[in-house]
């Protein structure tokens, strides 16, 4: 998907969206603003209750914002009812019409557009073909498996050639084995058709794997809007750092000159000198290197911690080694196939950990003046 050079304005723009349910202490969606280029896939990622589904429903017109605007292709659709928005929605429950066949479901949107019967039958078949279900066109939803229903719902949403495709946790009702395959299929299809898509999920792997852009939401607000790598490697807020990926937390005081004095006594080199004072730093396990006995820290790696092994957790592909250090508990991740002294290590054994100053993601301590 190449973006036309002239197409600088985002295809979808949310401008200060607010939704405050009557009686709720805080808004469900609180001043959400973002832009999405044509053809891109945006994942709204966050814990349950963070406002991501409400945001999606407002885009679809199924909820009315209390404030803010929604623009699609430069057109303000905020006041349009859902049936005039021309958006394909795949619901979490799929919401297939039980009294219609798969083909009938897919053709429904075309029928509403007033398309002649023959034409819409052809288009419905093509849409089912797209998701590999042409053979099951005559089945009723209850005669289809969960994965098949999911694909009919997708075909139904795509058949109307929507301005925007909206997916509300489309994979959550599928079992884990199926999920990965369907995930990649949806992404491939979306890229092939070039349909601008918004995707709601609470699963970070799903979001990182599929999206061009990820908006991490918390308590109704967008904490960070960025590409997946950036979200993971350079989280903008403490929440993003803890919600996306695992990380050890190191509390301490950041001194001018970039020295982090951990509560446990360790002195570490850290970036982010602007945050001088009480801080919390996060360290991702895959960034921590385990050094062999007597092995010197490689050049360019500023920090070295010594500690003792507290616990090892085997999860198949990787082994997590949890160490007690002068910076507190720190976890290092080792590939399960990697050779090394760690294989014989028992809890209590000494180990040495190395990481770069840039690997410490530093944020102001919670409770400290922000």
């Amino acid at each position, binding site marked *: 998907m190449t973006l036309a050079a002239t197409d600088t304005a985002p295809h979808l723009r949310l401008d200060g969206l607010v939704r405050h349910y009557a009686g709720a202490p805080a808004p469900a969606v609180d001043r959400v603003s973002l832009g999405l280029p044509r053809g891109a896939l945006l994942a709204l990622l966050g814990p349950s209750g963070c406002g991501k589904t409400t945001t999606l429903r407002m885009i679809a017109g199924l909820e009315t914002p209390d404030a803010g605007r929604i623009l699609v292709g430069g057109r303000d659709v905020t006041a349009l009812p859902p049936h005039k928005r021309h958006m394909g929605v795949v619901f979490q429950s799929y919401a297939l*019409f039980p009294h219609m066949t798969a083909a009938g479901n897919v053709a429904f*949107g075309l029928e509403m557009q007033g398309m002649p019967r023959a034409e819409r039958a052809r288009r419905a078949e093509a849409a089912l073909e797209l998701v590999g279900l042409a053979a099951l066109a005559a089945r009723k939803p209850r005669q289809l498996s969960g994965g098949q229903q999911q694909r009919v719902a997708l075909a139904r949403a795509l058949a*109307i050639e929507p301005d925007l495709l909206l997916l509300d946790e489309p994979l959550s009702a599928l079992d884990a084995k199926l999920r990965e395959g369907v995930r990649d299929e949806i992404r491939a299809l979306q890229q092939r058709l070039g349909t601008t898509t918004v995707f709601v999920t609470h699963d970070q792997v799903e979001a990182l794997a599929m999206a061009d852009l990820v908006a991490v939401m918390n308590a109704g607000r967008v904490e960070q809007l960025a590409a997946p790598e950036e979200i993971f490697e350079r989280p903008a807020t403490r929440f993003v750092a803890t919600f996306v990926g695992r990380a050890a937390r190191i509390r301490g005081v950041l001194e001018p000159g970039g020295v982090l004095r951990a509560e446990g006594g360790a002195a570490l080199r850290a970036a982010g000198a602007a945050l001088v004072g009480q801080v919390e730093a996060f360290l991702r396990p895959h960034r921590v290197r385990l050094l062999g006995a007597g092995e010197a820290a490689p050049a360019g790696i500023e920090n070295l911690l010594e500690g003792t092994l507290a616990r090892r957790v085997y999860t198949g592909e990787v082994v997590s080694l949890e160490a007690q250090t002068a910076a507190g508990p720190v976890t290092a991740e080792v590939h399960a196939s990697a050779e090394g002294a760690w294989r014989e290590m028992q809890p209590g054994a000494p180990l040495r950990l190395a990481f770069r100053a840039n690997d410490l993601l530093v944020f102001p301590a919670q409770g400290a003046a922000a």
Partner: protein
Amino acid sequence: MKPTWMLRVFAAIGYAVLMAPAALVLVLSFSAGEYLTFPPPGFSTRWYVALASNGVLMSALGTSAILASVVAAVALLAGGPAAYAIARLEFPGRGVLAALLAAPLLLPTLVLGLALLLVLQPLGLAATWPGLVLGHCLVAIPFAVRIMTTAFAAVPKELEAAAWTLGATPLRAALRITLPNAAPGAIAAGVLTFLVSFDETVISLFLVGPRLSTLPVEMFRYADQSADPLIAALAMSLIAFAFLMVLIVERLMGFSNAMGRN
């Protein structure tokens, strides 16, 4: 816990009380005798034959069948949209509306019948079709609204939302998506309101006249004056009919669901 034998015995007594009248009606409707005596002196279908040739009862049956059909249709057409509103829409006073539409079921039919008589008699509408339809709608509409509300509420809201996003106006979504999926409930509501009207006795007692009378009223009057197996044959026919209707409803949406028990 598994029911104890003691519970089974006591429950059997309860069921016996509930089932005994229907059982006796069944036995005595085939009596060869002149009176409702036990045991019947012999087996005969003569009372069913006599029933079929009883002009008063048969004409009342015709009246009741037509009346119940009209009432069921009116109750569905008037109650359906109201039920949809209660089940689906959010608007101020929804609770009040639901309570208003259920209110007639709270009052004794005797008082409702009397009140209707006091209004309809001076207008010359007592013992007329419009009067009877109106009187029956009074109990049929609340009933239809209750069952249809359950039926509409059972159709997931998401279906309609999905239809909207596909370009269907709210009206088209309601007609094309929600209504077909609520259809079994609507049919069940129709069957049950038919039955409610068909069996309605007390309100009708106030609203019938010599030239226009319903089957339950004529049956009530017959039973009040004489007790012979003819009335048992009629009662048995009605029980069989009700059983058939309940069976249909059970097939369509589950009887206890239809009654809105929860």
